[in-house]
């Protein structure tokens, strides 16, 4: 169980690092939001599952699952709200130059 939780946390950290690199490297708001949603949907999931596996069956595991459900419900809403605000404010998405 311990090994499983360590593997889960490491895999989650990989996605978190990739997302952080993406947030720095990608060119504009719209593409950066993809990187952020990458973190939110898979990195956080794997880290939290790792912690829940470490805890075993207990009330705190249920609470962690509740936090996870909360993240999964709210993160798309926040990402959508931000991107919609950006689009309505008249930002143009970055385009690859025709080469």
């Amino acid at each position, binding site marked *: 169980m311990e090994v499983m939780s360590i593997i889960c946390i490491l895999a989650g950290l990989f*996605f978190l690092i*990739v*997302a952080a*690199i*993406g947030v720095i*490297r*990608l060119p*504009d708001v*719209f*593409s950066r*939001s*993809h*990187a952020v*949603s*990458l973190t939110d*949907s*898979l990195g956080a999931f794997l880290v939290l599952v790792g912690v829940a596996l470490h805890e075993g069956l207990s*009330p705190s595991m*249920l*609470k962690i699952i*509740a936090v996870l459900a909360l993240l*999964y419900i709210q*993160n*798309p*809403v926040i*990402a*959508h709200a931000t*991107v*919609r605000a950006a*689009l*309505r404010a008249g930002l143009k*998405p*970055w*385009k*690859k130059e025709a080469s």
Partner: protein
Amino acid sequence: MTNDSFPSGVRSRPISSQFLILKTTALFVLWILLSASFDWIHLGLGLVLSFTVAWVNSGHSPFVPKFRLWGNILFYLPWLFVKIVQSSLHVSKLILHPSLPIDPRLINVETNLGHHGAVVLLGNSITLTPGTITAEVDRNTLIVHALDEVSEQDVTSKSIESKIAAMFKDEEPDL
């Protein structure tokens, strides 16, 4: 409590007792999770409070899924998760690639879902999948920002939409 205070353009359903019970139950479960104590005082207080909050906030009750639909959604989630893992790997590959081979574009997606709940579910699924994000929703039209060609095909191939349409085929359209 009537819904006369809403402007005429906004459609609002009357308070359904089903929705009230559902909301009370959800709030009560949250209360138990957060308090983690099982005295009579705590449980009774939680029940009263969650009912009060549900009652005060039941101005415009949204669509309440039937029991059958809940089951379908529960079976839909693992499938969505596999989808999320696939596209996460794809987006990671894009980001870690030295030359950053992205080609972002905005696409219009016309859907045939005639249901509020279905469109909300579709938009959330698209946003939750890395590589695509819903930027604007207007009834049956979604504007989606996709990171590259492969991500775009995720949306245009309508695999998510057909799945949701199969789930919602018994509901009467309300859009």
